[in-house]
């Protein structure tokens, strides 16, 4: 899967499930401060990512992911 395809899938989930405006979904957007996903939402995000990409994430690793760009890269590294 290309980075572009990962980006597309993640952004669709964020827009649909978390009702985040698409204009905010840029690679340098900070997940906590820009997208305003709190710790509860991060767990939901992990659940979506694991289902969508059939991967197993590590919570400690996810906590290191700061921006949306980092998240795309993290998913790619797990595929």
């Amino acid at each position, binding site marked *: 899967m290309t980075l572009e395809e990962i980006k597309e899938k993640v952004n669709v989930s964020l827009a649909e499930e978390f009702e985040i405006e698409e204009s905010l979904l840029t690679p340098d957007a900070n997940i906590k401060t820009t997208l305003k996903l709190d710790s*509860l*939402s991060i767990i939901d995000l992990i659940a979506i990512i694991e289902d969508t990409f059939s991967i197993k994430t590590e919570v400690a690793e996810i906590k290191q992911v700061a921006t949306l760009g980092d998240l795309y890269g993290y998913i790619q590294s797990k595929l």
Partner: protein
Amino acid sequence: MKKVVVAGAGLGGLETAYILAKNGFQVTVLEKHRTVGGALQSFCRNGELFDTGFHYVGGLEQGQSLYDRFKYLNLLHLPWHRLNKECFDRIIIDGNSYVHANGHKQFAEKLAIQFPSERESLLRFAGLIRETAAAVMSNFADGSRTFDNPLYTQSTLQVLQTIFKDRLLIDVIGASGSKIDLTNNDLPFFVFAEIFNSYIESAWRLDGPGSLIADSLAQDIRSMGGTICCNRQVTGINTRNGIATGVTTSNQEFYPADLVISDIAPSVTLDLIDQPGVIRNIYRRRIENLDKSLGMFTVNIRLKQESVPYLNSNLFIFRNSSPWSACQDSSISDRAMVSFRPCLTSSFCSNIDLLAPMSWNMVEKWAGTTVGHRGPDYLEFKERKAKELISLVSPHIQTKENADFSECIESYSTSTPLTWTDYTGTPQGSAFGIVKKSSELEKTMLSVRTPVENLYLTGQNINLHGIMGVTMTAWLTCQKICQIQ
């Protein structure tokens, strides 16, 4: 003074209400049943009181796991009865008997008599249980809760298989785990350790029904100025701009609140929120899809006078089965816990409870029926299961003059996961709430917080389960709200 409404008067609801009342909050507890207690409710059959969810508890001596918290909750004055230190749980697997004794070293040494080649491993296990329980306590003590330590991501079976070579010993150690639901092979080791450790410290029954715990908490909440209303089912959690403003009850009363705490199952709680948009679908789906632990089938037996000597231990009996896997054949009863109730005036037993795990699918076809109106096939099913369990345990219960155990029975009544659902409101009659998984810790160990800022969760679906787990979670819930004095 901040107003708190607690929905549900189970142990978690009552403990949070108690802590908050003691810390200056104006507390109102709303319970849908006519009595408080949830899983601690006791009921009366033919003049005898029986327990539903409570049979014994661990760690009540000074310096042990539950002592400080029960002292804070004014529960130490209850008539606690210490189980036999040399053997608080007797494990019987395929006719062979093993003991669980109090004290970490003694626990290991007693089992080492029957498993001499595992002596060192047993001592290591006892130490690990103690260290892990202490780490859990300190992790949860300040109200935060992190699972960063690798300790938290190991499953119980994985840890035991690393320590022990003898498969039978792993079964013996897990045998008393019907109070934890070990058939979930992914049960996090720290959950097992925290519960198991408290029993190794010391094990206690009540000289009386489990409802004494709920009644004591309720009485103290009232004496601190709190209000407890039974027959008040919360039918709605009212919100404005994403913040809870109070709750509505089945009799159309509105209880305004600055904070709402739900001791109701999380998926049911979310359904109560008046504006569905407040909760994202993704969160709702995640909560709804969490697996529920097994339910229990219980046979409450009233014994003929002076027919069965009191046994100051629990029995855990297995026949051609392992505590680590669920019974695959629903037509077989292959395991049971036996709990004895002392007769206060003699050395005999007044009644005995038999408990066995029962999955929801065994009773699902009667879901939607109400107590007393489930039909003759349900009664027949319960009767058959009761007879199976009685036959399973009979050879292992000592009776006066070695009479057949079935001849010592005056009468009995039964309950299934359906009964549990009706009386506690727990979906699928689950006895231990949501299944906690070491491979999905963050998803299955629910936070006490919710997407509604001032709506909190408590009870055994959250975090940890059992008396010990619910009590620790009550602290966690309250620590999100205030600095506990």
